[in-house]
């Protein structure tokens, strides 16, 4: 049974967590994630879940306790944002290397400094190489759906990796939206029971975890992580198909929007993808063949799918809501450009850094991007590879 409800992104994620009913949640509040922790605490207080909620004293301890819990054999979760994720940085790598299927929503917010509480993706991008799976969500519906699928992806025997479910701070987390939620039983059946194979609380089979790995073995264990990430691509698609059966909504690694015959396209994550789709529709009405590519999965990086989706496009704009300070553009720009290199078909790829610290992305900004792309397509000339959108210049 599916029900249409109006929820904020935070409420939707908390709702998913309630239905998943994890064994342990360890979390610490931070704007704009705080509501998730608050709402979930009330579920615990009211006996609506039978989760052990550990109200830790920091995000570092949140992930550390989640690691301990997952290593103990529990289905464990945490949730964070921005500085909290930055404080977790060290232990996120450890969670991935220990192959613990911890699911954690990240409500994307700009990193200090200067301090700012609003959306950008600098927090998530800082951990793109940590070995966790990163899912991105355009709206509350996707955040909800991603949370439920994340459990299955993380716990798959071929994967066993943490999954970070991203959604935009305030834009998604605090805005009320209409979405369809599944009934408890359906979610319960879909996520199934977590059966750990290696865990500390197996009295018959004591195990040592988190061991000291020197130059003689460390490299090999890193290689195993790569393989798990490769397997994750297949698993994510498989889980997405199965999720379609219970929800009617199918998910893959990317979402291609009107790309089949597109001349120009933007690549963009999370909520801005919705805005970009709207603009593409307008342009289509005017006869411009515009399309949008929204990576749903950023790590592992869906290189083949993206190459396939963009191979016939003439000019592509990658929109990054984060800086790398490499002076060569944003993080996703590097990945997408790298992906298209092998096509050897002279696709022009440019970068727009936008929305840092919650700077609003307006329709006219995206219109400007498509306009630039049209010019590039017509002239074959790129004047500036990296541009800043909506910046006072």
């Amino acid at each position, binding site marked *: 049974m599916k029900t249409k409800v109006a929820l904020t992104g935070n409420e939707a994620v908390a709702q998913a967590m309630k239905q998943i009913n994890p064994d342990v949640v360890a979390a610490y509040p931070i704007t704009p994630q705080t509501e998730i922790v608050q709402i979930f605490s009330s579920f615990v207080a009211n006996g609506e879940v039978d989760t052990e909620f550990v109200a830790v004293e920091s995000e570092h301890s949140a992930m550390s306790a989640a690691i301990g819990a997952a290593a103990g054999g529990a289905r464990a979760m945490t949730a964070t944002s921005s500085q909290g994720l930055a404080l977790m940085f060290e232990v996120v790598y450890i969670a991935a*290397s*220990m*192959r613990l299927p911890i699911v954690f929503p990240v409500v994307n917010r700009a990193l200090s400094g200067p301090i700012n509480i609003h959306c950008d993706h600098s927090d998530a991008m800082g951990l793109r190489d940590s070995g966790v799976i990163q899912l991105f969500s355009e709206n509350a519906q996707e955040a909800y759906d991603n949370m439920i699928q994340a459990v*299955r992806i993380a*716990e*798959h*025997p*071929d*994967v*066993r990796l943490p999954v970070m479910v991203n959604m935009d701070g305030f834009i998604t987390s605090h805005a009320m939206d209409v979405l369809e939620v599944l009934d408890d039983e359906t979610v319960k*059946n*879909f*996520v*199934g*029971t977590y059966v750990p*194979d*290696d865990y500390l609380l197996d009295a018959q*089979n*004591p*195990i*040592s*975890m*988190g*061991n000291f*790995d020197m130059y*003689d*073995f*460390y*490299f*090999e*264990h890193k*290689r*195993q*992580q*790569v*393989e*798990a*990430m*490769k*397997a994750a691509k*297949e*698993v994510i698609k*498989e889980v997405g198909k199965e999720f379609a059966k219970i929800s009617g909504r199918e998910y893959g690694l990317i979402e291609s929007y009107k790309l089949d015959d597109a001349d120009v396209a933007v690549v963009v994550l999370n909520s801005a993808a919705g805005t970009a789709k709207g603009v593409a529709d307008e342009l289509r009405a005017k006869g411009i063949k515009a399309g949008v590519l929204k990576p749903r999965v950023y790590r592992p990086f869906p290189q083949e799918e993206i190459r396939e989706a963009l191979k016939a496009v003439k000019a592509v704009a990658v929109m990054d809501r984060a800086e790398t300070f490499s002076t060569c553009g944003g993080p996703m720009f590097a990945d997408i450009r790298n992906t298209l290199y092998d096509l050897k078909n002279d696709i022009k790829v440019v970068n727009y850094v936008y929305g840092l610290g919650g700077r609003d992305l307006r329709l006219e900004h995206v219109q400007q991007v498509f306009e630039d792309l049209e010019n590039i397509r017509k002239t074959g000339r790129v004047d500036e590879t990296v541009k800043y959108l909506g910046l006072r210049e």
Partner: protein
Amino acid sequence: MTQYGPLNRNLGSGTRTKAVRSDMKWHELTRAGNIYEPGNANSYETGDWRSIRPVWNKERCIHCLFCWRYCPDASVIAKDGKFETFDYKHCKGCGICAKVCPVNAIDMVSEDEIEKVKEANKDEN
């Protein structure tokens, strides 16, 4: 309840083997560097760290087991509540056992000396 459908590409998961060898390939090693054999450090010998060794004097020993209690390397082996032997495979020769012995029933002897005695015996044979 959902059954997981493994993709039969268990490569990324590593194995749960107990016997890890240095010639194993990356996908043969245990996942995440987990160790499935509790206490297998026992098969790693630290006895060659030792330059002096404790030697037990049976006549003097009163089996108080202070040596057992204070050995950092679990290398004093007690049996039925009595001193049984030293585990020379792991004893690092720290000399704590000899020092805590209230009746001087443990001598610390240089490995060089032991070597010489061994050789002398060999010559006789």
